[in-house]
């Protein structure tokens, strides 16, 4: 029987990067792809964000030259009312201060998977990993409750010290090893329609941006590539799923705001796809004896916006490093591979899930809740009218009268958001770094009679006594530039 150090199931970004890392560590590595080539079977939004420059700068340099790439410098948010009319546009460039965050500021790219996946697979084969395409791996070899290898559809058995399962949202490896049956409400279905577009029109009208459409009727991304774009309209597969995927897409295409976009871009429907995307508060167990799950198979997409490709590479890297460590010890038992979970939790990947519950709750209760979106749109539109640039153009009455009317509208709408604020927004406050909370408190200190004469230290002591909610942030022993740990915060608030 064939025997490898590491078998990777799946030739997507996570699988390829795991295979590359394993091969670089000197492990005899093979990875399997069910498509005729990597990328053949993959549908995703596929915008790669700023953190790629931080963690994978050489890859990002190379990717810039691939044919489908459009550079991305911002996301444009378009809010549409219940009739599909455009009501509000805003963007996310940040100020010039953002340039200090990383050398590449807010830059990212959009790239089709047919460019990205073969490039990453090539990194793995160049490092010495073997790639087998058009091969479906559909079972695991189990021995005493531990995964000892995999079986292909043709009945071939392949032994491995460690199996890395990178076989996507519907992971056969997770199911066959007994780690999971279904996601149970934690997975979204994303129908996606791709359009070819006039490239010059895209350059002129869209430029270097992704678009996102939000409204009471839908939340959808519009990822812009060099000469095309696609829209995806996902929703959680829960009891309240009420519409056929194609009807969602058709409805979106019909909206006047979107029709204008299609017309001006000379857009023509090019490809229709649907894919599953896990979107969880926190990933379930990611390892068992002899096997680790990575990427979508593990449930790693971001709990806020569900981008999952950076997460796939990063978990793939950690899994392959853990495999090298386990193999060098001669122990790939479940207990040994718990090291994988320890490592990813301690990494940037684990940090993503520190607020997983809060992020995914606020997102599903707003962008994905039609009734809530209708109200939020109203509130946001009223808020937008207070902006100096907006009030200039409200000349229905004297400008100060207009301003007062908008203020009244906000106060009319506010009570409806009290519960939302308490339930979804307030818990996020835990994430504000203690040093920033202190900075805010020091800013208001001179305005508070009775407290303004106290030393800063005594001022914080008094505030901590007066407010249970603020006390955890003012604990002198707490880390200043990290979120207050959940248990410390909850103890304080109680």
């Amino acid at each position: 029987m064939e025997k490898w150090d590491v078998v990777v199931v799946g030739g997507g970004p996570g699988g390829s990067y795991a295979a590359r890392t394993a091969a670089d560590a000197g492990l005899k590595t093979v990875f399997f792809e069910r498509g005729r080539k990597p990328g053949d079977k993959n549908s995703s939004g596929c915008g790669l964000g700023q953190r790629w420059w931080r963690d994978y700068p050489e890859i990002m340099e190379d990717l810039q030259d691939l044919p489908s790439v459009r550079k991305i410098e911002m996301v444009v948010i378009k809010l549409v009312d219940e009739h599909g009319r455009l009501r509000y546009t805003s963007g996310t460039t940040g100020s010039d201060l953002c340039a200090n965050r990383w050398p590449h500021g807010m830059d990212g790219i959009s790239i089709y998977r047919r460019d990205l996946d073969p490039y990453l697979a090539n990194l793995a084969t160049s490092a010495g990993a073997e790639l087998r395409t058009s091969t479906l791996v559909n079972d695991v070899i189990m021995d005493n409750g531990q995964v000892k290898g995999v079986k292909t559809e043709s009945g071939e058995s392949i032994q491995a010290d460690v199996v890395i399962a990178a076989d996507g949202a519907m992971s056969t490896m997770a199911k066959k090893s007994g780690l999971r049956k279904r996601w149970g409400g934690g997975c979204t279905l994303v129908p996606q329609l791709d359009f070819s577009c006039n490239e010059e029109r895209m350059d002129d009208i869209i430029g270097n941006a992704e678009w996102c459409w939000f409204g009471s009727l839908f939340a959808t991304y519009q990822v812009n590539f060099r000469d095309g774009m696609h829209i995806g309209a996902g929703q959680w597969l829960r009891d309240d799923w009420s519409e056929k995927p194609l009807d969602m897409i058709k409805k979106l295409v019909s909206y006047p705001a979107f029709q204008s976009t299609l017309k001006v871009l000379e857009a023509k429907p090019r490809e229709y796809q649907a894919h599953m995307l896990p979107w969880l508060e926190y990933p379930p167990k990611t390892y068992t004896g002899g096997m680790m799950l990575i990427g979508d198979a593990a449930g790693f997409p971001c709990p806020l916006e569900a981008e999952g490709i950076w997460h796939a590479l990063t978990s793939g890297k950690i899994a392959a490093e853990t495999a090298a460590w386990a193999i060098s010890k001669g122990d790939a038992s479940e207990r040994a591979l718990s090291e994988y979970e320890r490592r990813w939790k301690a990494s940037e990947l684990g940090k993503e899930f520190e607020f997983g519950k809060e992020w995914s709750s606020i997102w599903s209760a707003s962008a994905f809740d039609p009734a809530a979106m209708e109200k939020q749109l109203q509130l946001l539109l009223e808020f937008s009218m207070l902006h100096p640039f907006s009030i200039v153009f409200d000349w229905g009455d004297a400008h100060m009268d207009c301003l007062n009317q908008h203020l009244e509208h906000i106060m009319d709408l506010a009570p409806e958001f009290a519960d939302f604020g308490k339930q979804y927004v307030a818990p996020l406050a835990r994430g504000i770094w203690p040093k920033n909370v202190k900075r805010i408190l020091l800013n208001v200190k001179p305005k508070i009679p009775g407290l303004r004469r106290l030393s800063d230290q005594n001022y914080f002591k008094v505030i901590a006594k007066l407010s249970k909610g603020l006390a955890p942030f003012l604990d002198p022993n707490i880390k200043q530039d990290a979120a207050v740990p959940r248990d410390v915060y909850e103890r304080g608030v109680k």
Partner: protein
Amino acid sequence: MDAESIDFFELVKRVDTDMMGDFIQYDREKCNGCGLCSLVCSFSLWAVKQGKAKLAMHYQGLCLECGACEEVCEPGAIEFSYPKGGTGVIIEYG
């Protein structure tokens, strides 16, 4: 652009659909007739008749291979695996 005039079947590229194999297993006994499989399927390949779901006969040439039907099937009557390697849907702009 008239959304109703878009032919979504035409927008899916496939290869070797006759070699894909039987990659969706259905256990009629377990089915509770809830119809969720039918609701989430892009091409309506599931239909509920007399309280039981039924999969389209030649689903291989129509299925998008997303797996949503298995995910929503509470009683576990639907088992989705993948078609044979190198066959089925080809995605060029994913």
